[in-house]
């Protein structure tokens, strides 16, 4: 780790936007040749949906995570610089953190590497959260679903989104590699700059660009590396691949991506304010950024993310080609729903009241936008119907799908007399297994930035490395 009291320039390499999404090995080598002081990589998100935090699965395949992690680790150890990974395994829960830790140790063994590893947990204990809720230290963001002790109890997993401080503590504790559970994407990259006293506004702004890899270039081809030269009063940003170009507009535009407010980005310790940021082209592929500000918050807050089981689902996909049925699809569907409800009551009696749900999507009508669809007239000669049955168990969901299938197949219309088959089914019901929902958008005010994020320091490999300070 660097111990220079006044570093004038801090160089940062981000290999890609998500560990497991890939990058060019050539770009990584080019990035490494530019002598970064550290490598950072985000490894998770809520974007793939609630099932990952809920179930503990990863959105990117284990093989893809192994490939990316192996190359990053090899590069970082070759240069003797820290590697920081945040939001391990998509959701950052303990199951996912353990999985990625296993991958990391496997890769290290294969490469014969030894280093100090810090593993930082972000999964939250339910009793701890209930205590904080009772103390009034959990408050909602806007918009937030209803929140109480029962929501905490019902959750499959709850994580806190850590700030930069736990990363800094790990590095100060001698870690060469930091593997963190759920972390603010930007905290991964802001940590080292803040340790070295760089302007928080510039540090967090550079971090915001770096966390997405090469997403902020004009001509994105596929996920790839990004590089920042952070200085005391500005930073430069460019992609290591010489074919990728950053322009003032592309860098300024990046603060719009997946953000509600493009000028104010909220972190645990405060708000990044980009309203006075300036973007200037240095050459045809490098941009100079200055003027980014950071307002320190009065209270330090950690965002909570939770997922709970909504039930089990079976789905049935079918289509309608008969223009007579298409012409009365709303009426036909309303009649079908009534028939299904009656049949469910006949089969299950009162045992399922209020515990099952039938959702229908009509593609070709409003499948994508639902009630917000402004186009009312159906312009298609065929419709795709997707029926979703949600129930307390997979077995019940599957049984419901059997009822829906039979009722939908033969629901009559007045124009035809005799038994019709109204829906084309390419296959019978498909079981989706457990499904989850995001159930909180709250922040917690901890006693300190570390309280929610216990750290383990582990020696990987045999001997401590000598003389590796960079």
């Amino acid at each position, binding site marked *: 780790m660097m111990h220079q009291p006044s570093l004038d320039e801090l160089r940062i390499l981000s290999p890609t936007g998500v560990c497991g999404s890939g990058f060019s090995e050539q770009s990584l080598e080019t990035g490494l040749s530019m002598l970064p002081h550290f490598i950072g990589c985000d490894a998770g998100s809520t974007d793939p949906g609630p099932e990952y935090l809920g179930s503990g699965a990863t959105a990117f395949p284990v093989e893809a995570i192994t490939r990316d992690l192996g190359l990053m680790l090899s590069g970082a150890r070759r240069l003797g610089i820290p590697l920081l990974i945040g939001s391990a395994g998509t959701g950052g829960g303990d199951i996912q953190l353990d999985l990625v830790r296993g991958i990391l140790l496997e890769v290290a063994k294969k490469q014969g590497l030894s280093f100090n590893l810090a593993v930082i947990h972000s999964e939250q204990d339910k009793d701890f959260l209930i205590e904080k809720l009772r103390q009034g230290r959990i408050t909602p963001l806007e918009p937030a679903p209803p929140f109480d002790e029962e929501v905490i109890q019902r959750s499959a997993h709850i994580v806190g989104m850590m700030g930069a401080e736990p990363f800094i503590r790990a590095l100060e504790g001698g870690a060469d590699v930091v593997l963190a559970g759920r972390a603010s994407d930007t905290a991964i990259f802001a940590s080292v700059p803040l340790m070295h006293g760089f302007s928080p506004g510039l540090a967090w702004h550079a971090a915001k660009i770096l966390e997405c890899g090469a997403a902020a270039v004009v001509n994105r081809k596929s996920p790839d590396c990004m590089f920042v030269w952070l200085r005391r009063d500005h930073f430069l940003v460019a992609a290591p691949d010489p074919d990728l170009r950053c322009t003032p507009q592309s860098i300024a535009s990046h603060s*719009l991506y*997946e953000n509600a*407010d493009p000028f104010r980005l909220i972190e645990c310790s405060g708000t990044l304010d980009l309203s006075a940021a300036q973007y200037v082209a240095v050459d045809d592929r490098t941009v100079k950024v200055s003027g980014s500000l950071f307002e320190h918050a009065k209270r330090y807050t950690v965002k909570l993310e939770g997922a709970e089981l909504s039930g089990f689902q079976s789905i049935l996909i079918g289509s309608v080609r008969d223009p007579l049925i298409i012409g009365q699809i709303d009426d036909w569907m309303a009649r079908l729903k009534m028939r299904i409800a009656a049949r469910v009551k006949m089969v299950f009696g009162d045992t399922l009241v209020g515990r099952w749900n039938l959702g229908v999507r009509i593609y070709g009508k409003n499948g994508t936008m639902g009630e917000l669809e402004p186009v009312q007239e159906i312009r298609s000669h065929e419709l795709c119907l997707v029926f979703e049955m949600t129930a307390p168990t997979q077995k019940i969901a599957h049984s419901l799908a059997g009822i829906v299938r039979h009722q939908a197949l033969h629901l009559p219309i007045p124009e035809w007399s005799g038994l019709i088959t109204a829906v084309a089914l390419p296959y019978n019901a498909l079981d989706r297994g457990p499904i989850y929902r*995001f159930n909180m958008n709250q922040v917690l005010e901890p006693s300190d930035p570390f309280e929610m994020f216990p750290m383990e320091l582990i020696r990987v490999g045999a001997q401590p490395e000598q003389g590796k300070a960079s």
Partner: protein
Amino acid sequence: MTRLASLARLIRSKNAGPFVLTFDIMFDDPQTYQRVRDSGVLNRDTVASLYSIAPAKVQFFYCDHALAVKASIPRPIIQGDVGDSDGHGGQQYAPLMDIEIP
């Protein structure tokens, strides 16, 4: 009058976390961006009306450096919840394409 879709470089929608849907309308050159911005046709109320939501719930921004107009709304259904049809929120922008700009 010109359709917004033929003036913009990119119109997109995306999640901003599981609870918020955000729209970016981006332009290639300052003249086109300024034409749209100064037309007054694309504003908080336009977005509110297209997405059947109270104007007070719409966050709305002109981003001069990015040559972009941006709006964010609470998601009609939480990402991935039963009934959500668009997990990434990526196909919710189509109604914006038809806004006529003088």
